[in-house]
């Protein structure tokens, strides 16, 4: 109860200059986070350097809620690599393993077939209508490392947006009521 009382008191004693100060500090924090994210995109060469595992198709290796670090280099795509790809028409990227590769002599372009470790069949059922193979332009990155369970925060915030609003609200309250 004392925390709420303290908070209400500090909101009452707010001055304009202090408020602007807080707003700028908050803006700086958000901007720094954005800069770090964009820098990571440059360093890893991938549009999304970190992804959260959403399905169970790669169990027991990757479980729902794990996060994967991606990297996209010019190295050719080879069998066994875990790649993240987008299918035309779907917005959620899929993280599966490459099981077949056919690389052209003349152009160096590749046809790639993927499959989730925990799935019985390959991914042709997931590809677009009439699509038999993936090409390099579909692939966003290779998984090079992973951290378990850290992605649950993102899953909860996406599936239950109310949590996101509560968290942002709390953060805002903390910033406003801090004395310096």
């Amino acid at each position, binding site marked *: 109860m004392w925390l709420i009382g303290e908070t209400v008191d500090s909101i009452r004693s707010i001055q304009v200059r202090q408020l602007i100060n807080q707003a700028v500090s908050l803006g700086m924090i958000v901007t720094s986070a954005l800069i770090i994210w964009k820098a990571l995109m440059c360093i890893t060469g991938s549009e999304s350097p970190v992804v959260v595992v959403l399905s169970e198709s790669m169990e027991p290796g990757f479980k729902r809620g794990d996060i994967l670090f991606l990297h996209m280099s010019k190295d050719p795509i080879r*069998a*066994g690599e875990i790649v993240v790809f987008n299918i035309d028409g779907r917005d959620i990227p899929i993280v599966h393993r490459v099981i077949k590769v*056919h690389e052209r*002599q003349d152009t*160096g372009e590749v*046809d790639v077939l993927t499959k989730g470790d925990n799935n019985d069949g390959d991914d042709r059922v997931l590809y677009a209508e009439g699509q038999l193979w993936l090409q390099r332009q579909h692939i966003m990155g290779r998984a090079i*490392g992973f*951290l378990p369970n850290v992605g649950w925060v993102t899953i909860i915030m996406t599936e239950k947006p109310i949590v996101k609003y509560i968290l942002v609200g709390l953060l805002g309250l903390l910033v406003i009521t801090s004395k310096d």
Partner: protein
Amino acid sequence: MHSFGYRLNALLTLGVTTLALMCAMASFSDNFNHPSPSANVQVMNVNWFQKQSSGNDEVSLTLKISADLQSTFTWNTKQVFAFLAAEYETPGNSLNQISLWDSIIPSKERAKFTIHTKNKYRLIDQGSNLRGKEFNLTLHWHVMPKTGKMFADKIVMTGYRLPVDYR
């Protein structure tokens, strides 16, 4: 400076930083492991070998695969994903890699094995180039850690050849 909010924030930051550091150290310790795996594959039988209606060659094989991947496991290993790929070159494609069989090895004890199996995934060429084709069988393995960087390596076994005629 001493409010509840600040203390909670400091505690959480310290907790997360320590966890991240421990994960990084655990992953780094994997670099000290020098694995010495071994593998041997025999083609026991060519079950059938035909040209499909699509014009592509397809072959079905029975394989005997024996391997010892125990040395690839470290304390930070969750599982090892092993697969056997047939690799060959054709006039149209500089490289073809077709996974024939794969397996998830969940523990060190299960990493030494011998199995007889038909190919799990269909060996279909892009075209009709497989008659008399010389190919390599490569055993790949991917070490998936409990946390951190993933390692991958392979053993290439050469000298396999498909029959000259369909059967």
